[in-house]
């Protein structure tokens, strides 16, 4: 079905056969695959890389390697910011829409500091950025970079500020100033840091290009609400020899919201669908600019606007964001959204129904159930595990729907629960006959008790309260 929509727009479909034709065809299995065709299929799916084929790396295959590399490289160039092992990669995207292929390299989020902030303030913001961490179904959500802005217009102050930041973090930087002299002062403070230089404009592009080449830095290009100028500048800088660009078509809020979304969308479509190599670079968004656009608004309103601007840009192709607010309520929805948008769209929404053994339960351990909606299951399992509770968790087939919805939609019934208990042979595993049910399934408690013959205990409505609930209520006898 939906294959239609992308087929028409795409330049060319890449098939494993195209790739296979260029491989050494030795079927040597050195890559770990059964044969070259299987390896080609993995390459096309981006599950393996060319470097995993030893024969291909031999000198006589140099041309094939180069051709394959061209064939497989993403339409959005991958750009690295920062030095060595601390570097962060952005861009590298293969597609415009996430259902076409998993998005690579989640949007990097930077928090700003300025060279006129007090030292304590700088250190506080850097530490807060570095320490930001949120546990979300099995992954840790983090912030990624520091954007250092020159508001003083004084090279020395900027240098001092960069030095200060470098003392406190190894996170990559973005050096923000339109003045090449100030930018250079910042680079001198951290000559090997390979920060992103923000930004080349129509007025300073040449000097910024020189700095980027001299210090081997990626360079951002800024042409607010003028994609033609942005493309001209990018073309010029590429010709100048700068290889790693990051494009900024401007983050406009208020009445400019539509223009902003359109600029980002047009650029990404031109690159991903039309093969425009000049625009085939990562995009940077600056929701922080809304604070400058609305100087009269309160911090709360600016934070609010910044939060949804950031979300809009995560949805619409930004590869880096610079934010000002460090409020948890601004950052949390955005790091979660980023996690959602960058997951593999092929990941199934349901898990296998059946019994899960958590920890080392015995015949007196509690028995609970949940549904097989993947997110529900992982949330419940992780809450139980982090509470260190030995228990049996029965995953009932609700056709992949969350508890409350499954109850309302009759996808979770007393019969299904009774059936699951029977299939898992729970009566043989525990001495008691008590089943703890989700609080959101409370209204089925009578029916389940009748159908299954088990005594029902209604658990908490949110699984984070399970440890507390068991401590207060669980008694197997």
């Amino acid at each position: 079905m939906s294959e239609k929509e992308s087929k028409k727009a795409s330049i060319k479909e890449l098939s494993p056969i195209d790739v296979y034709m260029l491989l050494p065809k030795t079927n040597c299995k050195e890559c770990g695959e059964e044969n070259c065709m299987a390896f080609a299929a993995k390459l096309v799916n981006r599950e393996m890389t060319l470097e995993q084929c030893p024969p291909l790396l031999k000198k006589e295959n140099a041309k094939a390697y180069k051709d394959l590399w061209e064939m497989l490289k993403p339409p959005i160039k991958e750009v690295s910011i920062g030095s060595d092992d601390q570097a962060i990669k952005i861009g590298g995207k293969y597609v415009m829409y996430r259902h076409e292929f998993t998005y690579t390299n989640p949007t990097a989020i930077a928090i700003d500091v300025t060279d006129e902030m007090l030292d304590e303030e700088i250190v506080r913001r850097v530490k807060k950025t570095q320490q930001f961490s949120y546990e979300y179904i099995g992954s840790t959500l983090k912030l990624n970079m520091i954007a250092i802005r020159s508001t003083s217009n004084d090279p020395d102050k900027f240098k001092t500020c960069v030095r200060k930041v470098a003392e406190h973090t190894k996170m990559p930087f973005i050096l923000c100033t339109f003045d090449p002299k100030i930018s250079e002062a910042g680079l001198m403070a951290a000559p090997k840091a390979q920060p992103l230089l923000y930004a080349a404009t129509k007025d300073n592009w040449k000097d910024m290009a020189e700095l980027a080449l001299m210090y081997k830095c990626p360079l951002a290009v800024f042409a607010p609400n003028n994609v033609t100028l942005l493309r001209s500048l990018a073309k010029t800088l590429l010709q100048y020899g700068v290889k790693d660009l990051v494009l900024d078509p401007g983050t406009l809020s208020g009445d400019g919201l539509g223009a902003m979304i359109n600029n980002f969308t047009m650029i990404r479509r031109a690159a991903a669908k039309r093969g425009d190599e000049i625009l085939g670079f990562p995009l940077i968004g600056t929701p922080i600019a809304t604070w400058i656009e609305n100087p009269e608004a309160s911090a709360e309103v600016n934070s609010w606007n910044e939060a949804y601007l950031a979300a809009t840009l995560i949805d619409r192709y930004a590869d880096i964001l610079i934010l000002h607010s460090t409020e948890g309520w601004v950052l949390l929805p955005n790091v979660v959204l980023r996690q959602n948008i960058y997951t593999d769209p092929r990941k199934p929404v349901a898990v296998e129904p059946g019994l899960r053994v958590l920890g080392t339960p015995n015949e007196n351990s509690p028995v609970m159930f949940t549904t097989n909606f993947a997110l529900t299951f992982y949330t419940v399992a992780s809450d139980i595990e982090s509470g260190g509770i030995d228990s049996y968790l029965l995953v009932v087939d609700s056709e992949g729907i969350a508890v409350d919805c499954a109850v309302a939609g009759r996808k979770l019934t007393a019969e299904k629960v009774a059936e699951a208990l029977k299939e898992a042979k729970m009566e043989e595993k525990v001495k008691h006959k008590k089943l703890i049910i989700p609080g959101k399934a409370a209204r089925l408690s009578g029916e389940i008790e009748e159908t299954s013959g088990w005594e029902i205990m209604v658990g908490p409505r949110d699984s984070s309260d399970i440890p507390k609930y068991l401590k207060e209520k669980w008694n197997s006898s």
Partner: protein
Amino acid sequence: MLEKESKEELQNLLDLLNRFEEIELEDVEMEIGDLELWLQSSVAAPRVMPRVSPAASPLKARPTSILQADFIPPIEKYPGQIAEVTLGATKSQGGSRGKSLTIGGERAPAFYLFETSTPNPPIISLDVFDTTIPLAKPVKTHFKEVLGDPVAWAKLAVDRYGADIITLHLISIDPLVNDTSPSEAAKIVENVLQAVDVPLVIGGCGDPKKDLEVFEKVAEVGAGERFLLSSVTQDMDIERACAAAKKHGHAVLSFTPMDLNQARQLNRRLYDFLPKEQIIMDTTTAALGYGLDYAFTIMERARLAALMGDPELQHPMSSGTTNAWAAREAWKKMDPEWGPRELRGPIWETVTAITLLLAGVDLFMMMHPAAVQTLKDIIGKLAAGKSVSSERIANWVPTKI
């Protein structure tokens, strides 16, 4: 830049966000009640699009001035168009509403203004419940004086929060709740019709048998009002549901659980009885952090496929965005570093809504007034598509905050 109007908007928003400070923050459990369903998505095949031409060779003379490049907006032609559906009927249209609202009609993806303007801006419906239900604390704050009183609630939604349309959720009809009879439910609808003059969406309880009985009765007492019956599902007697809508001039919401093939299937069955212009579809909304990725991608795929000519998906899309409150990050008290839930909650709903707005949703069913106001403001600005000056942000870097 800040004109009087937008200043007032900001002030309103601030008021809405600050209301929580006026009341004490006791801990209250939360629940959404009429949550919609989600499930099983089909597996998307990977698509890969390599570039064809190799990069230009870099070793040319270094330019001394800007090399002019042109930029031609990458415009696409779409063979398909989304159907237009009108909700609510004025006196001259056979109903009693103050105005009717039309959604759909798109010929390009959502807000691709470089291709075409938005024919009918998306609309936002405020949720109204016919019985007391547990609500997230930050939401309850705004509705506590009207809980359990659908007439007062509807008036509040329209008068204070400026709702252009409301969704009356008839939760009490659920056989496992109050088992309110179809004629009693119809009475509630009549009362609400008299209290407000905006178009109505009629929400059921999720029990396909009971919903159908109630829809039949409600369709009859609201004949000509062009309700949206929310919703018709695969396990319902489709023929009867459509007959009620057709006879009395209502639209239906075709609801499926996150699966494009099921959405097509159900729409196909509806075509036997109803014209396209009476069908809106809902492929299920999951909360930010709790499956929004699936909801977003299903909707984006549905809309792109519809525009590329898939006739079975060419309907305006609806989202139960209130589902955002199912995320514990939206309603729960958390460590202070995550901020008060009175801000975290509505921004959660807002971010969920914006994400789906960009995927192509035409009708939002929402809850928190600040989220509603923000989305309304965004839609207004996007639909206006004004040209703007970028002067101020051009100098954002050295500007102090």
